[in-house]
């Protein structure tokens, strides 16, 4: 038996070793180009399979260009996955799987560009399960932002500064502890009195939490954190627990919610709740559903009680569906609490990719302002402001050639108290590779109707990338013809925009945005700057 076992083990070992496939380069040429496909001829397609990626050479590196849809013994029928023009007779490289020694592995594949920055131990993964090991991963960013606004009117210019820190330290020292934070500090130039009066008018802690992963499926967190499964609840100052069992997850949260006015900690605003989530996924048909129940209090009196339901799925090929529903369960009328149902928020979004080149999407959202009955007792006006705002958006685009896209977008929004519903229609045409300039140009036109102004807008936007996307520049011009129907006044605006994004010194990036609005008498300017460093 030992012998038989040894033979079997040896046999399977040979099979297993043979699975350690090496690769070799096959050189082919584009032989024919149809409207749909590109044909590539090789001496032999042995080692190439349907679904394989074929490459162009660019300098000393290979650039993915084609995907094999079908093949014969000497030819591949491919579709393009690159914006680059591939003429007949162009050299195409296939990395064929072979049973040859790994010594013959492609030596000329050298890619030094666009390699994502890796955190620590990115390679430390368990190939058996495909799950990452308990490895430390620390990443985050700090940024300095400046928002300047000035005009030639009598309104004085202003400048605001905002500094942010975002940190996600997962599995610190390979432990089960992780820390997340996102906070900002902002102030107006030369105005420190407001900061001195209330530090929390400037310091906003959106996230500061410590997480402990008991195991792969169980985690606790403490501190301030927005739970992504119930993000509409906002931040929770307290504890959160989540447990996953197969496709189900459930969680419990308890703590307080931030102060309504300055976002500081307010322990009198106790809140608690739980949620149940269910995920499925098979062959690209995924779905995620979650249902949450939340009770929010003020001095232990019910302030708000609601259900939150979220569902998304991709059950139908190329169709993506998302819906969220927020249902309030509590009402206070004449100081008498009741359990009346009130639909506070609904969001439904549907996106469908009809073909590779044509896609459409639409969304409907309806939202009331959230009513915190106890908290708003001191904000009488807020109690009056609870109308349902509804809106529709439709969007479609068609990439009718490699470099040309046209799109149409329309929106409609209204609130019962609005003098008129607001609607807009926007169309654009984009040419992604303007000959000679190698930039992307978009011309657009739109018509907007709102409660107090009707506008006709024509625009041109230019975008150009440099250094493989590390520098992006943009310029835009819009002419807006505004008509105030009530007063029959016309206001013509000429709007210019300039944008620069520059990723430099590996982890530093600079964003500069300028927008100038010029009217016959007045001009308004905004300059926004951001210097951001990732780590």
């Amino acid at each position, binding site marked *: *038996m030992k012998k038989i076992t040894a033979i*079997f083990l040896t046999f399977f070992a040979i099979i297993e070793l043979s699975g350690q496939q090496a690769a070799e380069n096959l050189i082919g040429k584009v032989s024919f180009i149809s409207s749909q496909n590109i044909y590539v001829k090789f001496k032999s397609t042995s080692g190439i399979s349907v679904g394989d990626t074929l490459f162009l050479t660019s300098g000393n590196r290979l650039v993915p260009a084609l995907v094999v849809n079908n093949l014969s013994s000497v030819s591949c029928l491919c579709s393009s996955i690159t914006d680059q023009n591939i003429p007949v007779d162009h050299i195409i490289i296939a990395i064929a799987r072979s049973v040859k020694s790994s010594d013959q592995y492609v030596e000329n594949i050298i890619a030094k560009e666009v390699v994502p920055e*890796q955190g620590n131990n990115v390679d430390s993964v368990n190939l058996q399960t495909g799950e990452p090991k308990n490895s430390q991963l620390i990443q985050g960013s700090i940024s300095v932002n400046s928002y300047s606004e000035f005009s030639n009117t009598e309104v004085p210019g202003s400048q605001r500064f905002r500094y942010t820190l975002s940190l996600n330290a997962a599995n610190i020292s390979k432990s089960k502890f992780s820390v997340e934070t996102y906070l900002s500090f902002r102030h107006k130039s030369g105005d420190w009195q407001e900061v001195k009066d209330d530090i929390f008018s400037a310091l906003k802690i959106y996230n500061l939490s410590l997480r402990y992963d008991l195991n792969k499926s169980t985690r606790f967190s403490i501190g301030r954190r927005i739970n992504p499964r119930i993000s509409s609840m906002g931040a929770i100052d307290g504890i959160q627990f989540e447990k996953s069992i197969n496709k189900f997850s459930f969680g419990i949260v308890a703590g307080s919610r931030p102060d309504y006015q300055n976002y500081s900690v307010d322990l009198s605003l106790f809140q608690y709740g739980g949620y149940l989530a269910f995920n499925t996924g098979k062959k690209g048909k995924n779905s995620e559903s979650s249902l949450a129940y939340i009770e929010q209090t003020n001095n232990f009196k019910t302030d708000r009680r609601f259900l939150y339901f979220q569902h998304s799925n991709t059950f139908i090929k190329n169709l993506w569906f998302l819906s969220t529903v927020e249902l309030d369960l509590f009402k206070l009328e004449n100081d008498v609490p009741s359990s009346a149902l009130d639909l506070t928020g609904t969001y439904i979004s549907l996106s469908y990719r009809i073909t590779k080149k044509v896609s459409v999407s639409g969304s409907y959202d309806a939202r009331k302002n959230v009513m915190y009955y106890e908290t708003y007792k001191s904000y009488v006006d807020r109690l009056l402001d609870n109308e349902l705002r509804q809106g529709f958006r439709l969007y479609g685009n068609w990439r009718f050639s490699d470099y040309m896209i046209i799109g149409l977008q329309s929106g409609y929004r209204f609130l019962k108290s609005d003098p008129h519903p607001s609607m807009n229609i926007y169309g654009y045409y984009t040419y992604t590779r303007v000959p000679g300039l190698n930039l992307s140009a978009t011309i657009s036109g739109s018509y907007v109707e709102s409660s107090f102004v009707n506008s006709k807008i024509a625009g041109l936007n230019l975008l150009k990338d440099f250094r493989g996307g590390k520098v992006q520049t943009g310029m835009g011009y819009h002419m807006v013809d505004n008509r105030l129907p009530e007063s029959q006044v016309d206001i013509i605006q000429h709007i210019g925009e300039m944008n620069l994004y520059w990723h430099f010194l590996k982890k530093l990036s600079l964003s500069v945005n300028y927008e100038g609005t010029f009217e016959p008498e007045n001009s308004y300017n905004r300059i926004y700057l951001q210097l951001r460093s990732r780590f």
Partner: protein
Amino acid sequence: MRIVSLIIICGLFFFFRQQTEHPHGKEFKLSCSICHSPKGWTLDKEIYSFNHNTTKLPLTGQHNFVNCKSCHPTLVFAGAATDCYGCHTDIHQATVGQDCSRCHTTFSWLVANINEIHRYSRFPLLGAHLTADCSDCHKSESMVRFDVLGVNCIDCHREDYMATSNPNHPDAGFSEDCSVCHPVNSFQWTGAGFNHSFFPLVQGHSGPECAECHTSGTYTDANPECNSCHQQDYIATVNPNHSAMGFPVTCNLCHTLDPGWKPATFTDHDNQSFPIYSGKHKGTWTSCTECHENPSNYSQFTCISCHEHNKTDMDNEHREEGGYSYNSAACLQCHPRGVADDKK
């Protein structure tokens, strides 16, 4: 037992082989050599050449530089979310929808297109609103919530409205639609910023102090009727004495907005007394005093001072007319329209 052991061993072998063959999932079709080299199964950064732009989510901006594991927590890369909120928690608490790209780009969270965002919202920014700070209107902005706001003026300017004292808007019952009086593209609530287009303050009406017309301080006392402001002017007239003549109190029937009450016309003269703006007498006079020689009494007039109406000729022409008399009153009595054949 041996056979069972063999089956178990083979089963385990196939199981682990199955697992090791598909660390990236069964659907994964890319060549191993895009990421791996003979050095081992770890990612070889030297040969890495995967073009993420061939996926459903082309990498642009900051997405180019984040750690792969941020979006791909497992080696089954296809399991990564392609929608924004799959990776980014909605800190706006569902108040602005789920499509981050309406306000943000992959290059920066900085919202640079504030003007454009509002242009397609229910409240495009115009005039002074272009200079406003976000938090002036979005009171819950510090919580990064953008709650539903009304677009009526009063929704944001209620405090301004309630604080008014000169005039006191609530007491006067003024409209809560500020734009009736305060244009959206003005920068002050008073003076030049005030929209008086319902009663244009031009020419003779330009320049007066508000209190000249709005005498009670409530600004509800003035009305657009001429007499409400010009009664004293009317009474004081002497040339002609409007009151004595029974002229209407609607000044604009005769006067324009030109300062000094001149020029003035009295086109109703044709209907009230005698056609001088039409018919035979149209354009034959330049001054009222040609006919009304006594400026203190416009009820007096003369027809016979005109050179055409000399007495000898008139007497000859009317020789056969009974009751003929050469005086102005008689002329008008027989010729109320000023022509020869319009005898009554």
